[in-house]
């Protein structure tokens, strides 16, 4: 599988295919194990409420990992990512109601740079709230 998109085919304003990522409590437990972040605010509702949160919240790094999939799926080669940064602006609240939460991520090409680099700006929301700010990736395309 080669990178699926070429630098010369990209235009500023090009929208990347948007994606929707469901998040349930089990998703967070699994991510805690894989990432080593066992903070109880991500799996223990009693603890989350004690520290003033409305409920269990997703790991910010889980949201960050999900959002970049919109870019890596588009670019084909995840190794094309040379820069990636986000600001965590709102928590993704994940209730234990059999449905959980949904993270919606869209992205578009914001700039074409030198050396076959392309800057992509990401927009991530959950329950209608923006959850990431300044979310940007730079990818090197063939």
């Amino acid at each position, binding site marked *: *599988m*080669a*990178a699926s998109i070429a630098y010369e085919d990209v235009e500023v304003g090009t929208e990347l295919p948007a994606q929707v*990522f469901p998040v349930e409590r089990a*998703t967070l437990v*699994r*991510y805690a*194990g*894989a*990432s*080593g*972040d*066992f*903070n*109880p*605010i991500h799996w223990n509702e009693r603890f989350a409420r004690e*520290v*003033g*949160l409305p409920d269990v*919240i997703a*790991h*910010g*790094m*889980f949201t*960050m*990992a*999900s959002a*970049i*999939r919109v870019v*890596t*799926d588009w670019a*084909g*080669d*995840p*190794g094309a*990512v*040379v*820069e*990636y*940064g*986000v*600001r*965590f*602006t*709102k*928590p993704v609240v994940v209730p234990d109601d059999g449905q959980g939460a949904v993270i919606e991520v869209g992205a578009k090409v914001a700039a074409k740079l030198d050396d076959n680099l392309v800057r992509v700006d990401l927009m991530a929301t959950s329950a209608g709230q923006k*959850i990431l*700010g*300044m979310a940007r990736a730079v990818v090197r395309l063939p």
Partner: protein
Amino acid sequence: MALDQSLVGRSYPPTTPYEVGREKIREFAEAVGDRNPAYTDPDAAKALGHPDVIAPPTFAFAITYKAAEVVITDPELGLDYSRVVHGDQRFTYSRPLRAGDRLTVTSTIEAIKSLAGNEVLDIRGEVYDETGEHVVTALTKLVARAADPKESEEADQAEKAEKPEKVQATGGEA
């Protein structure tokens, strides 16, 4: 209590090497639901020009955040960890992490700021492979919220989101 500004620029000794394992990458990719074959299939990764399976971009955080523990717990810094939330995260890659890498991290206090009563700590984690080549730099912004809620109202709006715990042993192949 304000963090000690004189510690800006302080670097900590490199960590002992973390060995990136194929199965740890697979476990991480599955945990984020990412089925890109470059993470699990060596042949697919090779077809993209990588010598072995590569790790998802944010995999690096598990390594750099564990390394940042030496900063967070530095008694001279005096950070109240119970009030810390994750503000920003940024990565700059020279190449993707891949299976077989033996990576060391050097953590540096990049900046200390006081904003609306909150203490903002920027930690830079530079990751190098066993040949000394740069792999990725992680910039982690931690915000210690003010003890007085009135002072931290503004920052609360933005920063309430994330409260990472001191990273425990990851069960990885460190």
